[in-house]
């Protein structure tokens, strides 16, 4: 049996590029945190639902992560740490996971959370969540006593805990009474440090401090989405303000103390005020050119590699603006699967039109039309593809650019439908969660079929008990995906948030909004 507990949860002693732990907005000599007050937060729009099992959008998750908690959570190094579980034990064959639950954890309704609630929550997740396929290998859930929960798997899975820590479609624990509720129809009752108080659709949402909250006393302080959470605020009010200029105005007038998604070109208007500041939230996602490997020209690997050779990343990020940093890998630098300088990345940022022309010649390219599909909803995507089109023309490719709406564009990429060779998108938490989370994306978006090397590398990954072995498999996977230009990595990207300097103790962990430990001076 392998014991996995508290801070060393699934970390395996890996040396990571650790984030600095110093919080923002507070100096070492600062006074004690002040309790009380209501933080007003201006966000782009309101949530459609607060059902964690079906939520993947940021505006929903930035409320949900303050109301609910899961068995495990991401820590500030993006590794797995316990949250509602005190300890997890994996059997040697990685087919049985036993969770010892923390005692005395209360739901907002006042009832104690037990293994029956955990079992009911995961059963509901399997029924309603779009991410339910990640639990497809589960043979049975068992709750032998109120504080023990067991997952039995049909086949070994060494990364089950990594699956359970996902911040999107999160595996949050609800009261057992919610088990049979349909998707989006739950009562909003969790174990988180805040409880829902008021929600007026399209206007605002208020969460208030949950005085019955049981913090994880095994931790010294907050740690990513987990750790010991302390709530100083009486309440937090989310205001839904779609216009960036109005969000900034609300910050300037003092109506709000925190504002999400500040456009780069407007950051000066926030920073010109001495009482306001801008915080860079980075990295949030990675941007990619998707190459359809099942349609026309781009079914040919030489053509795909020619396209990758022609791409100049700097030109693209200069044109799109925003917060971008070069990274040839499909994992963020501060995550367990980031490979850094351990292997060459010849596929990245080649900006070599001559090489592209040579590869096109070898592929027998005869000036056939290459179709780029983009959308009218996201300006950065459209700009990216306009620049890519020019770069490919310079390499001698006959390019045709089509603009559709985002839903059609995304559906074409996910389902492999439509007539297109190149498109673009952004992937988020996959860069944190690692290869197991990437798998469905890698196969679906570029429509990869019949790549035995890729299939084999994934088999190696899931069978490898040791993190180093899994990292080696992840290198092979990326060499297949990026080396054969099924996807072309552009950059890691982030966003800006504006805040009043009287809002203290923000975490520099670049995750979804965490309101615990914040206070107003």
């Amino acid at each position, binding site marked *: 049996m392998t014991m996995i507990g508290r801070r060393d949860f699934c970390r395996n002693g890996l040396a990571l590029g650790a984030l600095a732990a110093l919080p923002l907005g507070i100096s070492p000599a600062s006074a004690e945190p002040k309790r009380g007050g209501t933080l007003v937060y201006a966000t782009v729009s309101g949530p459609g639902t607060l059902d964690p099992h079906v939520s993947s959008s940021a505006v929903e998750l930035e409320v949900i992560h303050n109301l609910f908690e899961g068995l495990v959570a991401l820590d500030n190094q993006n590794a797995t740490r316990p949250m509602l579980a005190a300890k997890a034990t994996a059997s040697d064959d990685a087919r049985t996971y036993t969770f010892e639950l923390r005692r005395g954890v209360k739901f907002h309704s006042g009832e104690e959370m037990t293994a029956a609630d955990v079992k009911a929550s995961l059963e509901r997740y399997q029924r309603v969540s779009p991410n339910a396929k990640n639990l497809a290998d589960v043979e049975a859930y068992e709750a032998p006593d109120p504080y023990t929960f067991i997952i039995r798997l049909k086949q070994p899975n060494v990364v089950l805990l990594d699956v359970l820590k996902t911040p999107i479609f999160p595996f949050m624990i609800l009261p057992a009474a919610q088990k049979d509720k349909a998707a989006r129809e739950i009562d909003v009752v969790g174990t988180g440090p805040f409880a829902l108080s008021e929600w007026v659709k*399209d*206007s605002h949402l208020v969460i208030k401090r949950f005085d019955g909250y049981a913090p994880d006393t095994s931790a010294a302080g907050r740690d990513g989405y987990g750790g010991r959470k302390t709530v100083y605020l009486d309440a937090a009010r989310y205001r839904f303000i*779609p216009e960036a*200029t*109005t969000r900034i105005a609300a910050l300037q*007038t003092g*109506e709000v103390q925190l504002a999400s998604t500040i456009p780069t070109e407007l950051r000066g208007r926030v920073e010109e005020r001495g009482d306001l500041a801008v915080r860079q939230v980075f990295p949030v996602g990675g941007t990619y050119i998707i190459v359809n490997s099942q349609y026309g020209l781009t079914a040919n690997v030489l053509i795909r590699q020619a396209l990758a050779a022609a791409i100049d990343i700097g030109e693209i990020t200069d044109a799109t603006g925003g917060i971008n940093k070069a990274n040839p890998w499909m994992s963020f630098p501060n995550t367990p699967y980031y490979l850094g300088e351990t292997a060459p990345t010849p596929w990245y940022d080649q900006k070599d039109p001559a090489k592209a022309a040579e590869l096109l010649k070898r592929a027998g390219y005869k000036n056939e039309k290459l179709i780029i599909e983009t959308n009218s909803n996201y300006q950065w995507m459209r700009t990216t593809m306009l620049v890519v089109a020019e770069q490919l023309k310079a390499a001698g490719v006959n390019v045709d650019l089509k603009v559709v709406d985002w839903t*059609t564009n995304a*559906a074409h990429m996910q389902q492999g439908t439509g007539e297109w060779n190149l498109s673009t998108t952004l992937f988020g938490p996959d860069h944190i969660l690692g290869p197991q989370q990437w798998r469905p994306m890698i196969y679906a978006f570029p429509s990869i079929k019949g790549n035995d090397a890729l299939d084999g590398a994934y088999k190696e990954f899931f069978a490898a008990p040791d993190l180093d072995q899994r990292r080696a498999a992840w290198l092979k996977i990326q060499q297949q995906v990026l080396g054969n230009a099924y996807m072309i990595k552009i950059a890691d990207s982030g966003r800006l948030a504006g805040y009043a300097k009287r809002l203290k103790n923000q975490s520099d962990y670049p995750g979804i909004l965490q309101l615990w430990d914040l206070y107003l001076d």
Partner: protein
Amino acid sequence: MLRLITIKLLQAAPVILVVSILAFLLMSLLPGDPAVVIAGDQASPEAIAAVRHSLGLDRPFLERLGIWLLRLAQGEFGSSLMLNQSVLSAMGERLPVTLSLAGLSLAITLPVGILIGSIAAYYRQTWVDSLVMTVALVGVSIPGFWIAILAVILFSVVLGWFPSSGYVPFAQDPVLWLRSLVLPASMLSLFQIGFLARMTRSAMLDVLSQDFIRTARSKGLSEWVTVGKHGFRNALVLVITAMGILVSTALGGSVVIEQVFALPGVGRLVVQGIMARDYPLVQGVMLIYGFAFVAINLAVDVLYTLADPRVRYD
């Protein structure tokens, strides 16, 4: 009067039918498969098939049209996919905001627009006329979106007179309700004031050159009675026509203003519906707005007869 309203309602019936059919065609005019668009980019083929079935998209066109009209006759305007509630209930929650905004905007527009239009007509061909008409031209020409953002910066950030965004219900605090709406309603009024001032000026110019005005003056009536009573009463029909258009533009213009000032009204609901590809919602709201515009036109026709006894429809 009852006969007039009955006739007008009967005349409105074909218009309502056409509006209903146009709203229905929204689904058919979507590029690609509406079920894919509605089910979303992460939907499985089963989910897409379920959406197609639930919307009846797997049935023949004429059958779908017949079902749509039958449901409308029973008062069913459909259900929103993103909100998981009926369109009528979603609109009902947000209508007080939009009606407050439109009502306050009209309360600002009517006195200001009529007054400055009348002044421009009275002082025609003078610098006063030129000034008023230039201001009116600016009002109808400047994009509402842009002027609203400038107003937020000036009146909220620089002067601190009004909140930059948000809405407070009347029942919660009437003073804060008014304060939250003055700036957005004023911005919504800018276009309308310009439009109404030009219409009023034009109508008053026609009237003030009539013989009966000259007669009134020669009788020794004061200018106030001559222009304000005899003149304006006769220009009122044209002003009422303008008011019908103003109510319609107030509802339409609220889409942009609600977005800028983050007001939780019907306009913002429509924008979110469009962004989320919630076509049943957009379809339902479009239809209800269509009905509202028909009702406004009916009200204008009735007002004509009250304002001018010479107007008869028989």
